[in-house]
Structure formats: C-alpha cells, structure tokens
C-alpha cells in the first residue's frame, strides 16, 4: 500500500501542494502538518491531487479547515486534477459544490 508524499512549491502568494499516495486516517496528520503551517501570506492554495488515489473523511476535515483559512483572507483553495475516487468522495459529500476544482 502506498504512503503519502508531499512536495510544495511557493510563488509569491500562491502555494501549490503536490500530494502523492493516500490521504487517510494514518497520513492525514502529515498532510495537515505539511500544509497548515505554510499558509502565512498565501491567498491561493492549490492542492494538486493528480496522484492521490484515495481520501477518507479525515482528509475532508483538513480540506474544510484549509478552505476556511483561505476564506478568512479572501483567498481561494483549488483542488487540481482529482482522480476518480477522490472526485466521487468530494461529490457525494457536497464538497464539489464548495470547492474550486481544476480539471
């Protein structure tokens, strides 16, 4: 089973997070710890999920928290290229309606 790796790229006020693997109960704390402390001065947060095969509700909690943080600074959170299962999880939970998705 694949674990989670995170790469980050910051350009001015845009932070892009490239995640690869699974964001589940085990790996969500790592995801949170990599992203949340890096948001100072960021108004556009891009979560590149092209290589994320799986997310569970633990990941949704963190995504919602990040979305609120971006909302506080009138910023935007974008999920880029979600895979099939990830799209489906976001859809049935109504997250597709409140997030910006970039195909």
């Amino acid at each position: 089973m694949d674990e989670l790796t995170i790469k980050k790229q910051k350009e001015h006020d845009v932070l892009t997070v490239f995640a690869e693997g699974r964001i589940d109960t085990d790996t969500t704390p790592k995801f949170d710890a990599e992203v949340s402390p890096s948001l100072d001065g960021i108004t556009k947060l891009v979560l590149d999920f092209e290589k994320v095969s799986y997310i569970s509700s633990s990941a949704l909690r963190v995504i919602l928290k990040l979305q609120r943080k971006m909302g506080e600074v009138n910023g935007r959170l974008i999920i880029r290229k979600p895979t099939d299962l990830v799209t489906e999880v976001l859809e049935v939970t109504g997250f597709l309606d409140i997030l910006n998705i970039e195909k």
Partner: protein
Amino acid sequence: MKLIKNELEIEAEAVKLRTVISFIDEQLEAVGCPMKTQLQIELAVEEIFVNIASYAYAPGTGTVQIKTVISGEPPVAEITFIDHGVRYDPLSRDDPNVKLPPSERKIGGLGIFLTKKNMDNVSYEYRDGCNILVMRKLLINQ
C-alpha cells in the same frame, strides 16, 4: 465462484488500520475486484474501523472481529465488524447536510455517510452485548 471466508481479530486501535486494509485487499485482489470498487470498500472499512477504534472502548481498549465472505456470481463481498464495546448504532444518526456553505459545515457524520454511499447495503444490530455491523457490495464496476 469459490467461496472465500476469512476472519481477523485485532485490537481496535487506529494504528492497526493498515493491517485491516491489507487483510481486506488480499481477498478482494484474489477475486479480481475492480480497483475503484476496492477503493470504495477500503473507504467504508476505514471509516467503520476508525470509528470503532475511537469510540467503542474509550478510554479503555478492546478488540474487533472482522469477518469477510465473498460468494456468488457476480461476486458479492460481505464484511462484518463485531465489537463488544459501548452500544452504538452508527446508522441512527442523521446524514450531514451536504448543501451548507463551508462556514456552516459540520464535519461529524461524514465517515458513516461515505460508508453508506460507497456500499450497496449496511445494517446494524446489537446482539448478546455486541455491536454487529454488516456491509455488502457487489464486486463489479458500478
């Protein structure tokens, strides 16, 4: 197809999640379960197992028994979770309102909701001091 039956008894602790998922995957892979279906089942298994690990025995500890049966043509997987922790029917809670804006979103209940959405059927009963949750899913691309 051949009937596949298996059982795992494991400490109800979130750190055991990988072991539980591997146990489920092995059997799904043995019958050539489509990848997306497998991921959906993993999701349901994770949500239920983590729920039991978090609440059933808190603040103490205990075990959970996980039974799997795969049978039929096309195959159906039946996964049963049995714990003897505090009585709790996860299906009794209301579904979260998935139409609210982010600021008003409540995050509770999403795990169970995802379980129901990703499995064909989920049922619960309390018998002989045990919480028994059974879920089923047809192992074809849907």
